[in-house]
């Protein structure tokens, strides 16, 4: 065993149905974000930048695009033949096949994989969140406290606290109570779904949880409360950077728009903490004479002849002459034809907006999600 070895298990099976058309064909971690990324890139890049050498990706729901995005992990330098990144879908053994029934069960089913890596610590991550975090800080905190589990938490606005799993702590940040979406929260510290466990402790509890037929095999609902009840040393580690769980179409749009704020704390230009993604090897963007781009992020392969304001263009987007795009997110391979006007919209991959079509209006308070089949107003 290498000292302090950490294996990360990244839960990437989430369906994310509130994202509607965005997750119709793909799992939530595969949803495009920020001009060139997919949501899972953030957790994967955090792991790579934190020097975590072994990572298992737990997939289940519609893994096809996710598999092809991740490949063998080359973009994150995880393409090692021994260790590195492994995609871990459900499999079958003597007693037949079993689908993952919950977050804890997904890890339980892969105890053999983790044992083979022989780690001291296991880090549970979710592929659903957008944030930059150095997991070494969590690890250091975990070791200082000699904790059995350390949970990353962050302050949320008091009026939103009842939407989260709230964690109550003593003055040393030792966890004394979990409250799952409490009506009257005592606290506004929400769990981020990021857990650092001692592997030997987690291993025992995963087996124990599996033996309980009443359990939903979920970390937040079952495993962590059981550990607390049995007196394990559990600490909360407070994170204060940018973090977003893009659960709805509006929060998805907002999180994208956040990137245009020059003071946004998710600085994508930080050379010391790059977010990596699969490269599409496209040529540079071409900005034509007569175009007008301001306050926008534009990716490779785009061809811009029209007007783009406060918007994000993913790769290979064409904005024709006279088209206007404002306060919008245009995913890859879209064409916004001549004279079309787009406001406050999320245009899904490969959608063509016809000439002179109009979606939304300047100053509109709604968000529009446009697929090739329909427009959802939110």
């Amino acid at each position, binding site marked *: 065993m290498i000292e302090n070895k950490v294996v990360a298990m990244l839960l990437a099976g989430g369906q994310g149905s509130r994202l509607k058309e965005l997750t119709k064909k793909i799992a939530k971690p595969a949803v495009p974000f920020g001009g060139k990324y997919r949501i899972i890139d953030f957790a994967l890049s955090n792991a790579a930048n934190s020097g975590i050498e072994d990572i298992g990706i737990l997939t289940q729901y519609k893994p096809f695009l996710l598999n092809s995005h991740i490949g063998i992990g080359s973009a994150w330098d995880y393409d090692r033949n021994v260790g590195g990144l492994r995609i871990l879908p459900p499999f079958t053994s003597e007693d037949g096949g079993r689908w993952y029934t919950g977050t804890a069960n997904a890890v339980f089913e892969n105890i053999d994989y983790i044992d083979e890596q022989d780690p001291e610590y296991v880090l549970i991550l979710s592929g659903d969140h957008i944030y930059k975090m150095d997991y070494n800080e969590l690890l250091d905190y975990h070791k200082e406290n000699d904790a059995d589990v350390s949970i990353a938490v962050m302050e949320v606005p008091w009026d939103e606290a009842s939407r989260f799993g709230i964690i109550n702590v003593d003055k040393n940040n030792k966890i004394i109570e979990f409250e799952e979406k409490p009506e009257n929260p005592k606290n506004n510290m929400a769990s981020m779904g990021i857990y650092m466990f001692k592997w030997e402790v987690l291993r025992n509890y995963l087996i124990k949880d599996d033996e309980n037929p009443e359990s939903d095999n979920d970390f937040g609902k079952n495993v962590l409360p059981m550990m607390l009840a049995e007196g394990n040393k559990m600490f909360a580690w407070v994170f204060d950077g940018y973090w977003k769980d893009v659960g709805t179409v509006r929060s998805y749009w907002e999180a994208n728009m956040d990137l245009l704020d020059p003071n946004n704390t998710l600085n994508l230009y930080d050379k010391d903490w790059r977010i990596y993604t699969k490269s599409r090897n496209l040529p*540079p963007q071409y900005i034509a004479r007569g175009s007008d781009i301001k*306050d926008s992020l534009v990716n490779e392969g785009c061809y811009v002849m029209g007007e783009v304001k406060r918007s*994000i263009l993913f790769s290979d987007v064409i904005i024709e002459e006279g088209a206007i795009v404002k306060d919008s997110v245009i995913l890859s391979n879209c064409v916004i034809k001549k004279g079309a006007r787009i406001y406050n919209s999320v245009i899904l991959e490969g959608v063509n907006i016809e000439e002179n079509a109009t979606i939304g209006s300047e100053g509109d308070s709604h968000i529009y999600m446009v697929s090739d089949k329909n427009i959802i107003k939110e």
Partner: protein
Amino acid sequence: MEKCLGVISAGNLENNFGALCIHRPVYMLPYGGRYRLMDFSVSNMVNNGIKTIVVYTGEKIRSTMDHIENGRPWDLDRRFKGLILFPPVTHGYTSNKYGDIPQFYSTMDFYETVREDTIFLNHPNIIAKVDLKAAFKYFKETDADITFIYKPQNDPWGEYVNCEKISLDEDNNLETMGMNLGTEKEFNMFIRSGFMKKEAFIRLVKEAIEKGDSDYLLDAVIRNKDKYKINGYRFDGHVENIRNLKSFYDANINLLKKDVARELFYQGGTIFTKTKDEPSTLYTESSKVQNSLIANGCVIEGTVENSIIFRGVTIGKGALVKNSVIMQKAEIHDNAAVVNSILDKQAVIGEGVRIAGSTLMPYVVEKKQVIRKD
């Protein structure tokens, strides 16, 4: 194309490029916003199904090794086949010789053991998206020993003086090959690519060494042209023959033409290059960009016109960049003006500084050079 081996051999023209080639060979010159010249050669071979490519690196090998990453961008970082670098041999028989023949000879073992029976020779400083599958078919069907690829080049202004010129008979067989001196307004420009039977290649190299009469493979071919069946394959697409600073500058600026960009970037497959993980480019409130090619990772607050901007460049408020080629991570500070210039990587143009060349002789700022107002 499974049986064809790609061979990239670049020669040494560094002196024609001044400060741009102090630390890099010509084929490593940045081109088109995010590429190096050689990316076009290698990608075109890979897209046409060539699985093994050897590169004679020349002496300035560090930048090549850094960029090529053992072939990773082209999926050529393989256990079997893949991309192989041959740095120059600096000891033994070949160490003090000029020309490509001694270098080819120093790797004869390699040619004699690989299973490929055809060699595709390529000069990476000439960019042309030739359909190699079609050219290979022609080479096979005519049962030639050597097929040279040429382009009928219209050249009323003598811009292509010193390029290679070939003439062919009515059956497309080679008559002569020499240097174009501009005596005709149109000539057949040999683009220094072609197919050659491996056995002919090996024989030409060995005989040149034994007789001591040729240092360069092309010379050996000419001297022995009656012994081999040599013909020409005509290519009518766009060609950039990069042989000095001016043609390098023009080749970049030419990419602002829609047709040229479409052909070189898209036709016949993707151009692969080393991935840099830059985020998208940010255009701020004060940016104004017209007719320019912009790579990722830039932050543009100023005005850009008719220019090629590489990855990670920053252009400050009130700055003007016009008719220029700005390489990776260069910084142009507020209110600076850069006109008809080439900025090498990480060059810095300080606040308010104004530099300008002419389109005939662009102003070159060296790698990491800092120009400030005093």
